């Protein structure tokens, strides 16, 4: 199969043997990327008496988890029961199945670095890409994002929020990549030739010790 080649390709390796399924990477991802917790009641909906409640996080078909930890078991009873955990971000495929199916080119893999982009205002919400993705790494916004009172204060400027009706997915913490390039530029380094750990996505950062303050 033909893959798109780039001079620079960012990648992440996950040691599945070490994963204990703690879910810290999922939390790190949600905080970094402004993924709203799902709430049943909408205080801004003045027609609550005649409308149905929103889905809450118990409906796993409609939750947003750009980074999702799957639990894999052999289905046996104790003592033969074995379990493994599989964290699943967007795989940033070499030849992504989601890209050619998009009718509006809202998703593409065309930037040096090899990250599959998703432009939310451009997305029309047809969900063709979700059907095409073999990893179920894409999510549709069934509801407008809503942060409980006070929690909106911790929104990150690093990721734009998505409205109802568009598809979103892991962007490999792309803003961290951009800020790493900015820092390189101001320090007179080549932004196209960053060090291997110049930028680390939030999921990986939240489960590994911080080496030095300057590398955060």
């Amino acid at each position, binding site marked *: 199969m033909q893959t798109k080649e780039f001079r620079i390709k960012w990648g992440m390796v996950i040691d599945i043997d070490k994963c204990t399924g703690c879910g810290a990477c999922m939390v790190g991802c949600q905080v970094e990327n402004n993924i709203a917790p799902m709430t049943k009641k909408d205080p801004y909906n003045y027609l609550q008496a005649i409308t149905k409640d929103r889905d809450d996080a118990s409906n796993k078909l409609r939750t947003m988890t750009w980074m999702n930890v799957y639990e894999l078991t052999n289905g046996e009873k104790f003592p033969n029961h074995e379990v493994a955990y599989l964290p699943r971000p967007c795989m940033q495929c070499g030849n992504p199945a989601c890209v050619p199916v998009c009718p509006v080119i809202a998703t593409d893999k065309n930037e040096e670095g090899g990250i599959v982009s998703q432009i939310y*205002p451009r997305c029309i919400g047809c969900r063709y890409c979700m059907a095409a993705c073999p990893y179920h790494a894409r999510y549709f916004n069934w509801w407008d994002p809503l942060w409980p009172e006070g929690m909106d204060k911790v929104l990150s400027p*690093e*990721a*734009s929020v998505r409205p109802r009706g568009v598809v979103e997915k892991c962007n490999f913490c*792309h803003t961290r990549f951009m800020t790493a390039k*900015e*820092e390189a530029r101001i*320090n007179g380094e080549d932004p196209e030739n960053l060090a291997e750990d110049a930028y680390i996505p939030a999921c990986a950062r939240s489960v590994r010790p911080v080496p030095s303050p300057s590398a955060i």
Partner: protein
Amino acid sequence: MEERKASKRCGGVLPFFIGFLLSCIIGWAVIPPLFYQEVEQPLRFSHQVHVEGQGMYCDSCHYFREDGSYAGFPSIQQCAECHYVDDPEYVMEAIVEQVGEDYEAVLDLPEEEMPEALVELVMSGEERDRKAELDYLVKFAIPGKEIPWLNYQYQPDNVFFSHAAHQNLVIADLKEMEIDLDGVTVSKIEEIEESDQNCDLCHLKGIATNDTPPPFERNIISGYSKMTMKMWQCERCHAQMGQVNACYVCHK
């Protein structure tokens, strides 16, 4: 003969042209401005007074941080490096004593009737500058509030603009640039005005030395600025400079 009569009854082509002309005028000149609302800056900040009068440099307030990000608008702490209020609580008490809890009402008084503690903080000479400075002191510096500047170059939140990547652009070079991209020639951008400062490429012309900031033109539907750069302009320049136009180069 019958047809001619019919056309005469409707007045011929003239009413059609008048109607056409009218709809063009309404569509192009009358309706579009109705979508924009002019909003004044919270403060009459004069670049002229600070740059020409006080000899300040652009990067005294607008500078790069160590991590490469850009400090666009200065915070009131930075303003306080010159406009220092030694004891804001004392000045506030003096104002409240004079006009009551609604401290901003002190600005309606003539300067002679204002509390001494406030007037002695003003450094400007000319009357209108003194008025602007008093505005700054009473509304922001003394109560310790940040100034909610309106950003003419405001971009939607899914745009990532790197000042660091654009700081070495030279407008004169840009005007000469013409490149061939696989047989498609990206021609020179003629309408760029010559300027020594590359900030002028995107920011308002002459903003760095103007005396009264122009009003911010806000789109009443989207809330975006009329004066900001549009995506096609970013893309055209990127193409012309041989830079990539991939989505994630600018979007987040």
